[in-house]
């Protein structure tokens, strides 16, 4: 009896291409759904177009209007949002667990039937995108990190994450782009606190199973080192020092080492990370302080540390913790004990005179 019931008769009805995974999460009353459209992030689109696509999500579709979706969500106890990352477009919903089929269908509708009306772009998506971009760019830390991506990867991952207004697009452009990336091979569904069999069944009954077949492959990412980007502006001084990471495992130990070794101060914020992207990874140390001189001094220390990093194995536990917090899963068992980064990129925002150039470090 048990053997019979455990056979998943559902899974075969799900189109093979849509990848479905489930994760356990604390609590049991609230579930969440993350639909990741790979290769639909800012690296793949014309600059800023992916951000506009994210802001155009969850508006009017063939099946239901944006108004209806919002009002029904309020009654069901659900929230939804669309975010753009460098790699992908992420459609997320968090809801009381009974509403799972509703949101599977709703997100499916977004992917298959969004209408992309011109007035929605002008009145909702575009103003919101500009607000979001302006809010992000008001942080010198974010700005320095954007510049670091730009000089490290130039195109692809180096494109701006958000819409910067340098190009203008019509709703037709967004629709075209959506059509080119909303393919079943690109879509991955991650449910948390849901029953996998139920999720698969609901997906097979939803528009998600009717996505056009195909997938887009990520463009190879090329990187350079030894570059500088300097943006002079008022306010705190932020510096991002980094390089494309080839050996992700070792670099995540290096990040842990850097984060715990740079001297703590109440005024300076120091962060070090390896961000794994599809096809490349970026290692960076970010330093922000109200005083340009403090940022400059910390950048010099960080550079020294990067040139000769030894005894990294000690930081395995910290690297594991950082990954748990960051939500990434890099296998660090094969990490090396020492690494040397002779050439790196440096992006500085703020009082740029107080921070040395990359080749002076």
């Amino acid at each position, binding site marked *: 009896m048990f053997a019979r019931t455990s056979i998943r008769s559902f899974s075969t009805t799900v189109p093979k291409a849509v990848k479905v995974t489930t994760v356990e*999460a604390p609590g049991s009353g609230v579930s969440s759904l993350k639909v990741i459209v790979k290769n639909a992030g800012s690296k793949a689109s014309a600059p800023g177009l992916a951000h506009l696509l994210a802001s155009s999500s969850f508006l009017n579709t063939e099946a239901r209007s944006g108004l209806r979706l919002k009002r029904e969500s309020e009654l069901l106890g659900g929230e939804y949002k669309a975010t753009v990352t460098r790699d992908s477009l992420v459609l997320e919903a968090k809801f009381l667990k009974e509403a799972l089929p509703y949101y599977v269908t709703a997100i499916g509708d977004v992917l298959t039937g969004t209408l992309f009306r011109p007035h929605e772009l002008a009145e909702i998506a575009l103003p919101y995108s500009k607000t979001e971009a302006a809010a992000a760019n008001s942080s010198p830390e974010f700005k320095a990190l954007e510049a670091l991506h730009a000089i490290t990867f130039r195109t692809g991952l180096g494109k701006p994450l958000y819409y910067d207004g340098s190009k203008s697009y019509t709703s037709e452009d967004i629709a075209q782009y959506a059509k080119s990336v909303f393919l079943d091979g690109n879509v991955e569904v991650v449910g948390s606190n849901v029953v996998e069999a139920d999720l698969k069944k609901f997906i097979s009954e939803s528009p998600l199973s009717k996505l056009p077949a195909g997938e887009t492959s990520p463009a190879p990412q090329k990187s350079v080192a030894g570059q500088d980007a300097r943006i002079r502006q008022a306010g705190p001084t932020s510096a991002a020092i980094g390089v494309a990471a080839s050996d992700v495992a070792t670099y995540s130990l290096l990040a842990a080492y850097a984060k715990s070794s740079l001297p703590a101060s109440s005024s300076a914020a120091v962060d070090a990370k390896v961000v794994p992207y599809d096809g490349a990874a970026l290692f960076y140390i970010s330093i922000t302080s109200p005083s340009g001189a403090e940022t400059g001094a910390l950048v010099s220390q960080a550079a020294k540390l990067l040139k000769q990093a030894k005894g990294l194995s000690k930081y395995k536990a910290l690297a594991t913790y950082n990954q748990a917090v960051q939500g990434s899963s890099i296998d660090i068992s094969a990490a090396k004990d020492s690494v040397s980064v002779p050439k790196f990129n440096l992006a500085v925002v703020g009082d740029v005179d107080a921070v040395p150039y990359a080749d002076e470090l």
Partner: protein
Amino acid sequence: MLSRRFFSSSRQVAKSVVTKLPNGLTVVSKPGPQSSSSIGLYLNSGSRSENPFNSGVSTLVGSVVASSKAASEAYALSGVEVSSSNAKEVTGLAVTSFAKGNAKEAFKTVKNLVANLETLLKNESYIKDKAAEASAFAEAFETKPKPMVIEHMISTAFQGTSLALPTHGKADTLATLESMDLKSFLGKQFVASNLALVSVGEAKHDDLVKLASELSVPEGSKPAFEPFHFLGSDARLRDDTLPAAHVAISAQGPAPSAADYYAGLVAAQINGLYQAKGLYTSFQGSQLAQFFNANPMTDEFDHFSLGYSDVSLWGAYLETEHIEYLDEVVHFTLKNWNRFSAGTFTETELEQGKAALKLKLLSPAKTAAQEAEKLATNTFLHGFEESEAEIIKSVDDVSHKKVSQWAQKYLYDQDIAVAGTGQIEALFDYNRLRNDMSMMRW
């Protein structure tokens, strides 16, 4: 035959377990599958246990522990992050966060930090540095309009009592604190009956109980909070250099343990949060949101119910760049509150508020440490944490009539506490604001 559905959804539901040790120390743990866990020692005393002469001492104690040498070593070499947290009635004294599989190191860290506490407090120069940092932090807090204006609203509401003291302390007082102040504060508060060892995630309850019994914590009776006293009043910190006007208004609500507390929580969710620049804001269903969509004169409103052990504050934070309309923004918001007592809010609004509240209360916090703080707060408040089923039942029990009754008792024609900062020239005087809490018609 058992159905398939039965198997697949019969996952064990995480429930918190509470043990009280003979010396009075509470151990509470909530298992969970999250990738990072937290164990922390929490004090059931925060800024409310301070006085005007040691304001900020509870924040300082936490930061002294969290930035100690033992803490930074645990971080670098064992991957155990030590943090502290502070609220009106709860202080996270030594809170650890760690990745799955590292519970042993976290246990060691907690034990180590508690054992080192006395030596830490002896280090005068270290305490002085930390006091200067905490003072700078308290100063910086005053530059964030939203939390700042809410803090001042609480202060004016409970003026003259210790509940009025700012959560993160007064900058001037903090700068003068010395190790003696910390010792005398901990001497009274750091007793077993006033402490809880809280765990969220993978640590086993039995191990925690063992750890708790090994901690060297003095016994003693639990210190009581100074009683609260609500006074309708206003505090204005006009600052015309800010681009907007920020106002927080609230009335006294019931204690979180009272039967009608949930009605207020639902009412706060009915109006909820409105951000004029949000992506889906124009579709929002609440009547007040619709009103401000049609008459764009506010940038944000955020309704809240702040619960303390014996009282709560129910109200809203309002923000607008259209400073010339601030009087209207406040007036129409307070008139909207009148609908609760008049019972003219709709069933749909009620259902929407209940659904939003369930989602809010059942959603896990962003980090394990925040989840642990939530658990600690609930445990101190009720002696246990309500299960999800209990929360759902409490919310479901709220009816249209109950919300009306709650509003008639706590909102209609009641005194209010008001705080404002930014360009608040158009914020009316207290009596005109107070008049909006009742109606000339019914």
